[in-house]
């Protein structure tokens, strides 16, 4: 058990150190835990990815919990999560320490300010990617939710929590309506 926990931890640790996006990390996890160790099937891994996407928070952490739990129960989930969060945590401690010293330096400032153009372009690209997955389902409700959410975020100062609750209620109603439609077709 301890050996399994250690293998999970050390694999997640190296994965987290080398990959940046959650999907890239998931790919390597699949390669190690399904391919190299054979502890989980590829099909199960696909399902875990879907579950990871359905949970709040980073996909990397969520899929680590799923795979870790599959292999070694809650201790497995714990070692997987620790492996995923330790490298970024330690690196960011160092980076923040330096940032506080260099962020007011005029040359560094010019550089960081210039980078904002790239940040803007990248976020735009990410937003369009997310929009595409929503648009694939092509339903008026999703487009309405985008418009309502945008107005809510821009025009009001209320917490996003209420907006999330609203979205969940819409989802429940929509799921109930589509179930009834399926019944009628039968």
């Amino acid at each position: 058990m301890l050996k399994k926990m250690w293998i999970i931890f050390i694999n997640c640790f190296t994965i987290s150190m080398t990959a940046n996006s959650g999907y890239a990390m998931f790919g390597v996890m699949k390669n190690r835990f399904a391919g190299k160790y054979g502890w989980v099937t590829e099909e199960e891994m696909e399902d875990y990815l879907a579950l990871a996407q359905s949970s709040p928070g980073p996909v990397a952490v969520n899929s680590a919990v799923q795979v870790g739990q599959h292999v070694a129960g809650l201790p497995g989930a714990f070692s997987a999560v620790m492996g995923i969060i330790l490298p970024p945590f330690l690196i960011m401690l160092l980076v923040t320490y330096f940032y506080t010293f260099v962020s007011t330096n005029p040359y560094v400032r010019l550089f960081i300010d210039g980078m904002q153009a790239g940040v803007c372009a990248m976020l735009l690209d990410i937003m369009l990617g997310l929009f595409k997955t929503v648009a694939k389902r092509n339903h008026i409700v999703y487009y309405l939710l985008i418009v309502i959410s945008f107005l809510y975020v821009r025009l009001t100062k209320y917490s996003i929590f209420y907006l999330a609750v609203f979205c969940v209620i819409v989802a429940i109603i929509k799921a109930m309506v589509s179930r009834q439609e399926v019944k009628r077709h039968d």
Partner: protein
Amino acid sequence: MTRVIEIFLAFIRIGALAFGGAYAAMPLIEQEIVDRTGWMTFTEFSDLIAIDELTPGPIIINSATFIGMKLGGIPGAIAATLGSILPACIVSIILFNLYKKYKTIPLISEMMNCLKSMSVAMILSTVLKIFLTAVFGNEIALANINIFALVMIVVAFITIKKTDVNPVIVMLGCGALSMVLSLAGIL
């Protein structure tokens, strides 16, 4: 100590609502850390997005460590990081066990789609703010328009969209180019 607990709670709220990929967390951080508590300025916040891209690991953990460390030292960093992943871990453990029992859960995929729609709007809102700050500075007026920044955003976007170049390289390129041109007195 109260500071550390406040940071922990703020990041639990952020972690619990970050649906639809890690970038969905950015607008939440903006609302919680910049607007609501005023712990950070908008400039520091947009610096943070750039720094996140340059470092490995999930963006929500990077930002949590960065903000926690700035606000409350190492205890703050630990509180923020653990807070940001706690809801994710709890929900994941519950979903894992539900999945083992029922295999498919249509309601969950429906919830995902609705929450993703919300994320689209939230990221759009953050992009818009960064875009306006980069192009117009503090005051939105035609006289303030920074054509160079505008051109750079368009070129950067096309590069990310149409080529395989790593976005990190594109961002570093933007930074280097604008620094060199400013120092040469062209801007």
